[in-house]
């Protein structure tokens, strides 16, 4: 059993005690699940112990995120382990305690003013609105990536204490909180990042969603295959109908493609490579698979899969949301298209072979 298998088993055991549920304005996340994960030290995996994390490899963190995504765990683990935590480490900022959820957000419309120009991590004030904040109202801290102050190249990474800030209670199609944070001269610790570092963080965010998508897509396929084997129509299992077999095989092709590419992008990240294009590709490919897999899963399940009682929607609604989060399919397609042409019109192939 690999380290990751052990991690997966631990997370599965914990998940077993918490059924997925429909998120509502009253019940915006699975605080109990989070508590159990935090208690087991799983909300700090992949973050070094000296920084307050639980240690472990990127692969461990990814395994946790995958397992929770497949289980529709309503907790900000992907954001914390794969984006916010590493972002703070990149910026050499202190990590808040992993026991309290920290999320990540793109504050492209935020204005940042330096308070302290001294060496090391400084102080900044932030003003503006940050839309689509994952787990707004749930996360105690929000790591905001914002443009650097006027006249300075690059970006600022700021750690915002969100516990006393108002957040709108908007949510995505799965009911996961995606509120807007309104910042009015909020003082934060922060650090300057280069433009390249900022791009890498955006890519990490997209890759985190890709990892979640890949896991959820695999789970949806597995459920659908199982259902087709069990459900009988016209006197035989659905899975014996050739039309259903064609649909399941198409789903399997999509899932396999997403997994292969996402895994490769994660490995590139683990090797310390620049993963902007790899993450873009993984996100775009996963987004394309969502359409096919969610559509065919519901088609095979028939009306029953469309009901709130059925587990299927916990993942299909997340799939439909996640594909447009952390940068839409369209936005990342353009990044990837421009990226593979960056070497010139005749260097497309070499560029493609360098992505992952």
């Amino acid at each position: 059993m690999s380290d990751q298998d052990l991690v997966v088993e631990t997370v599965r055991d914990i998940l077993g005690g918490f059924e997925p549920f429909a998120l509502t304005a009253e019940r915006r996340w699975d605080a109990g699940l989070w508590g159990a994960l935090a208690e087991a030290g799983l909300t700090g995996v992949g973050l070094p112990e000296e920084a307050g994390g639980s240690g472990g490899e990127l692969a461990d963190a990814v395994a946790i995120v995958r397992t929770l995504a497949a289980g529709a765990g309503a907790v900000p683990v992907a954001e914390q382990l794969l984006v916010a935590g590493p972002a703070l480490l990149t910026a050499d900022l202190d990590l808040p305690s992993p026991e309290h959820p920290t999320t990540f957000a793109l504050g492209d419309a935020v204005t940042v003013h330096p308070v302290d120009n001294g060496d090391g991590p400084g102080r900044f004030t932030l003003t503006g609105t940050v839309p689509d904040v994952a787990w707004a109202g749930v996360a105690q801290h929000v790591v905001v990536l914002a443009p650097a102050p006027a006249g300075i190249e690059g970006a600022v990474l700021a750690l915002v204490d969100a516990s006393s800030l108002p957040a709108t209670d908007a949510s995505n199609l799965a009911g996961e909180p995606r509120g807007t944070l309104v910042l009015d001269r909020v003082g934060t610790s922060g650090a300057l990042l280069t433009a390249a570092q900022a791009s890498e963080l955006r890519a990490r965010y997209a890759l985190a969603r890709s990892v979640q998508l890949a896991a959820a897509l695999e789970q949806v396929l597995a459920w659908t295959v199982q259902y087709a084997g069990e459900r009988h129509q016209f006197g035989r299992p659905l899975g014996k109908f050739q039309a259903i077999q064609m649909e399941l095989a198409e789903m399997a092709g999509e899932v396999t493609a997403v997994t292969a590419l996402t895994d490769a992008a994660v490995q590139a990240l683990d090797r310390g490579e620049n993963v902007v294009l790899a993450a873009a590709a993984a996100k775009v490919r996963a987004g394309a698979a969502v359409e096919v897999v969610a559509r065919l899963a519901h088609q095979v399940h028939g009306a029953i899969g469309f009901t709130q009682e059925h587990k299927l929607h916990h993942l299909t609604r997340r799939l439909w949301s996640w594909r447009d989060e952390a940068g839409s399919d369209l936005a990342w397609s353009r990044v990837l298209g421009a990226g593979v042409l960056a070497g010139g019109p005749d260097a497309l192939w070499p560029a493609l072979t360098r992505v992952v």
Partner: protein
Amino acid sequence: MSSNSLTLAPAPRSEAAEQLRAEVREFLAAELAAGSFTTHVDTWLSGVDPAFSKKLGERGWLGMTWPKQYGGHERSAMERYAVTEELLAAGAPVAAHWIADRQSGPNLLTYGTEKQRQEILPRIAAGECFFVIGMSEPDSGSDLASIRTKATRNGDGDWVVNGAKVWTSNAHHSHYGIVLVRTSPSDSANRHAGMSQLLIDLSLPGITINPIRILDGGHHFNEVVFEDVVVPGDMLLGEEGNGWHQVTAELAFERSGPERFLSTYPLVAEFGRRVAETGDPAALATLGRLSARILALRQMSLRIAAALDRGELPNIPAALVKDVGTTFEADVIEEVRRVVDVTPSLDSPDPLGRALAEAQLHAPGYTLRGGTNEILRGIVARGLGLR
């Protein structure tokens, strides 16, 4: 073309329909302006508003094709097409009366007793009486021949009904159900024999209506449970044992209408507004492609309306409308996403994001309700002579 059963004559132009269309459009603009409804996606399933239905009834826009003696207006199917299409395009709340007007009324006209017609049809046409169809059951899925809800005659000649029907749209707002029941035991040699349709007052003792919430939490569907429900003997609809045939005959009505391709039109409309604003050439091309598909579907559906006016029941072309149309309804989502950077959310400040969210959350239903597309394609294959 050799596959003649798929081919229908082109629909003639109907000036009467166009005039009516203008009237409906004016009415809808006024209602929207007055705030009596707001536009939503898929309102023929989810937009229940009895008051709105009554307004339509008052204007003569329900039961349009029926004889005047039953409260109808003796208009053509082409005219009815124009009215329904305008209502759908506006995303108006038409769910309350939709099934009664589209399907149950015609069903009663064909198979109902004179008493049933006289009592019920005028109320449907007035927008005051709503219907559900009881066909699917928890274990039947697409295989309707496997239904188990049973009706047996008691000593008084009444029917005693036991069983459960699912996917009954808006049963909690409806007055009657036309329910497919087994009136004699199933026969493996003829799986379609022994079924009948009963007209059942949903307020009868022994009927329980349980909500079936869909994935976004919306309550449109129900399970209707029958426990020793005593249905008067004269509420048999049509002939005993002829249920399968009667159900099949309804399909041209059920599958061919504009609701099979316009459920997500409000999303197209929002997309159009966005394109008008940005002028993005790729989005313009996408709008053109979507428009071409809508225009083709309209002609397919209009041809069926014209065929209904000629007294035909073109079930195979109707299956094609539903297959091609419902595929389109879901495709709209992907086409829009391909060219516009928009986040789908019911809470979005952007109306396009809201419409996209509504369309997405209802998407699994489009190609399932009224016969899955796999079933429909089997029917088309039969029409092509392949089985």
